[in-house]
């Protein structure tokens, strides 16, 4: 028995020394023949639908740009790694992408892993523009930018709407207490709410994300319910609550609501209550760039994964391409083997210097402020009227 363990430990040592062969090189991008964009997102697990949407839409944008000749003939390449929404997977994903030649990044798809990613990329000065990691702290570094609205901003805008239209009334709030997104929106909503408004609030956690009878019971007299949560628990809540709440009640959600009207098996017309959301993208858009994007996306990947995450990722790729193109047009040289850090400095100068994207899928005019938060207008979409 003893001997086989010694053999095993020896094997272990051999493995360890084998790995040592890979010492750090000076530049990981010296052999690049394309510009490499990296992104880490949940491709498996409960949040896989968001990662899949970002992967598909970013791929779509990269293919279009390449088909149109890339950046002065140099093509782009997308690398997607799976983080299962687990922050501990990010360091491995990030380092393997960087060592694989990544020059620009879309950061992470979700906020939890993004909190690791922003620091790792700040250490190496790697530019990232995240499509959907909406945590307030994500763009805190000099190298990070957001395409989606930060959670706190969504909470503030929603509070302003409620203050204006529902002063002096009682409203309901339903949020997910153990999720960064939901809690982030909720905190800023509460902080900016007019004191004349009374709030009945209830929450749920990951462990109890399907059965909402107790929460419905708490909210049953509310005629306006603010729900900063994602669409799948929201649709469950609505299904379970449809006979228990007033048929004229209004559900008011944030960008997490997008896609609620296209869940297989969930017929939103069966819900008597009204559903409204505050978002930058409407997956039922009938005209404009959003419609063009939806047609191309559905044609290629189907409707299952169509949501605001994908739309935002599509815009991210074009924003990065546009900024690089603008820099080249202004006379900056961007060779294909440029290091991530040098490219980051070029892109930072563009994004901080008033670079504006027009007629994008998620906004008619998009720019970024000093901190990296996005400037664009939020639109209130009525998904469904009451009745």
């Amino acid at each position, binding site marked *: 028995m003893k001997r086989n363990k010694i053999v095993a430990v020896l094997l272990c040592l051999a493995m360890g020394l084998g790995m040592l062969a890979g010492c750090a090189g000076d530049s990981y991008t010296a052999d690049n023949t394309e510009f490499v964009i990296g992104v880490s997102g949940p491709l498996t697990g*409960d949040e896989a*639908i968001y990662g*899949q949407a970002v992967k598909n839409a970013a791929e779509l944008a990269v293919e279009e740009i390449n088909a149109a000749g890339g950046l002065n003939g140099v093509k782009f390449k997308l690398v997607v790694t799976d983080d299962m929404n687990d922050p501990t997977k990010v360091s491995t994903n990030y380092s393997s992408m960087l060592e694989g030649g990544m020059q620009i990044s879309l950061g992470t798809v979700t906020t939890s892993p993004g909190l690791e990613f922003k620091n790792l990329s700040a250490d190496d000065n790697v530019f990232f523009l995240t499509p959907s990691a909406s945590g307030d702290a994500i763009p805190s570094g000099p190298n990070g930018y957001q395409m989606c609205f930060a959670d706190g901003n969504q909470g503030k805008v929603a509070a302003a709407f409620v203050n204006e239209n529902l002063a002096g009334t009682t409203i309901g709030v339903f949020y997910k207490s153990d999720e960064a997104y939901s809690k982030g929106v909720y905190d800023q909503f509460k902080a900016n709410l007019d004191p004349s408004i009374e709030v009945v609030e*209830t*929450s749920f956690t990951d*462990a109890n994300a*399907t059965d909402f009878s107790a929460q419905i019971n708490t909210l049953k007299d509310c005629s306006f319910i603010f729900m900063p949560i994602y669409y799948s628990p929201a*649709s469950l809540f609505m299904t379970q609550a449809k006979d228990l709440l007033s048929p004229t009640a209004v559900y008011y959600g944030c960008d997490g609501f997008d896609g609620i009207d296209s869940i297989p098996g969930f017929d939103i017309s069966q819900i008597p209550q009204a559903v409204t959301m505050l978002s930058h993208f409407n997956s039922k858009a009938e005209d404009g760039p959003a419609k063009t994007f939806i047609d191309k996306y559905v044609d290629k990947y189907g409707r299952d994964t169509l949501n605001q995450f994908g739309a935002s990722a599509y815009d991210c790729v074009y924003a990065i391409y546009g900024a690089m193109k603008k820099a080249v047009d202004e006379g900056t040289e961007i060779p294909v083997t440029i290091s991530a850090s040098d490219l980051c400095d070029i892109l930072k100068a563009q994004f901080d210097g008033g670079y504006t994207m027009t007629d994008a899928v998620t906004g008619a005019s998009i720019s970024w402020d000093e901190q990296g938060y996005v400037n664009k207008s939020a639109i209130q979409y009525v998904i469904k009227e009451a009745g």
Partner: protein
Amino acid sequence: MEEILSALIGGLSLGGIYAMIALGYTMVYGIAKMLNFAHGDIIMVGGYTIYVVMATGSPLLAIAAAVVVCVALGVVVEKLAYKPLRGASPLAVLITAIGVSYLLQSLAQIVFGSAPKMVTVYQFGTVTFLGATVQVSALVTLAVAAAVMAGLTLFIKYTRVGRAMLAVSEDRGAAQLMGIDVNGIITLTFAIGSALAALAGLFYLLKAPTVSGTMGAMPGIKAFTAAVIGGIGSIPGAMLGGIALGLVESVSYSFAPIAPYTDAIEFSLLIVILLVRPTGFLGRKRREKV
């Protein structure tokens, strides 16, 4: 008042679901002396079966199919994964059960994808009861859970097979010497437990009409907690523990300040009860022999 009443009724029906799952845990523990960690995932398989068969539009067919599939799966898992380990250390069996749980969850993701699926089995309305609005499905759940438990108690007490099950749980070796087919009894226990899991899955879908690969994990853990609170190995204990846990959960979620701490409250309850009564409410003390 009405709020408390509807919280109580919601809690009772949730408790009924927990009790049905807990029965599966407790019977398998009592008879096979193992923690079947994969029991919660049988619920998930039942849920997906209902989702698939509901395409035919017949709820009854879907329920029957779910019971059949779950029983078959329970028996197959027992034969392939647990039977070879009979007599091995409890820890080895536990790890295998965990492996089976992971296996079922990842198979579900491969077959059905990662997005949760919505499925409406049957639309019950609501009734007004003492001024409180109550879901009819909650009452149905409660009634069926009570009937199942009564039936199971009678079955164990008064039938030959039921008494054989009791004998095996009491002393496996002696039961074998008395000519009881121990392996057959263990298989039967898994079959009954899995059928109950399928029913629990159905009522879970009536409450929350969505199926996903991990839907069974947390109800499984909670029901196991309920079984331990009630005294593991005891059938009335599983019912009592399930109902108690369901009530605590429902009431806790009704009060906003403590709602986020609901899980912590439930698990603390477990610890406190085990401190006061180390064998749970109705568990029996086992004297250890040298």
